[in-house]
């Protein structure tokens, strides 16, 4: 299979991640096309050191960051969704601050990280996050942007960023616990 054919197979997953970050089909199509073009224009740059998917994802991430920087900031107000998450987080703890259900071991991480089904569940859990939380969370955890960068891009305070990342992590943790790790025990 030549490089072009391999890239054609990757188009679906790349598009999916771009849509998750950009929340725009048109922009996602653009960045994925640019990514594929960048690889095809310089085939020697992909020396086969990593998987093509890893290489393409790396280029895609940079292009997504560029779009996020260029695009005017959107203000998404979802107080109800985020309030629900705050209520859900509070419900995890007793009045004295102890866990209602203390977290139990998730076992050896390698076991989960080697299963495609785990990543599919992880994706579904991420997709359930409210749009604003999901965007900030993925900017931090998938694009690996610095928190200060994220705050500047989205015009939110550092404290607000921290609150949103906390909400997203707690929500994601609960989702994985209920839908994956509890069933593995």
């Amino acid at each position, binding site marked *: 299979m030549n490089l072009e054919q391999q890239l054609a197979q990757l188009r679906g997953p790349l598009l999916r991640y771009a849509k998750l970050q950009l929340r725009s089909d048109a922009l996602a199509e653009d960045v994925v096309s640019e990514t594929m073009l960048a690889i095809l224009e310089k085939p020697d740059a992909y020396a086969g050191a990593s998987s093509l998917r890893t290489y393409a994802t790396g280029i895609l991430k940079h292009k997504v960051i560029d779009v996020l920087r260029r695009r005017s900031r959107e203000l998404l107000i979802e107080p109800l969704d985020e309030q629900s998450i705050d209520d859900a987080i509070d419900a995890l703890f007793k009045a004295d*601050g102890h866990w209602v259900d203390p977290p139990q071991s998730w076992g050896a991480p390698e076991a989960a*990280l080697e299963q495609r089904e785990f990543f599919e569940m992880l994706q579904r859990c991420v997709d359930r996050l409210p749009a604003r939380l999901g965007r900030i969370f993925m900017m931090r955890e998938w694009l690996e942007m610095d928190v200060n960068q994220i705050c500047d891009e989205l015009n939110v305070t550092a404290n607000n960023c921290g609150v949103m990342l906390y909400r997203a992590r707690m929500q994601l943790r609960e989702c994985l616990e209920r839908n994956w790790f509890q069933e593995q025990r």
Partner: protein
Amino acid sequence: MTDQPKLTCHQVSRILSDGLDAELPEDERARLRKHMAICDACRQFEQQMALMRRALRGLGAGKDDEE
């Protein structure tokens, strides 16, 4: 010298999250260490946060079909 109040698990969950994004102040780190030394639940939580980060950074970087 007055001891600072002990952290609750609820507070620790937020501090551990903050610690994933920036260095925590020394006094907070000290209080966190004391709590983590005696709280298995929060130690598990910390490991779960670390696993989530590893998993998310690997999202999309799967193996090619031909590998």
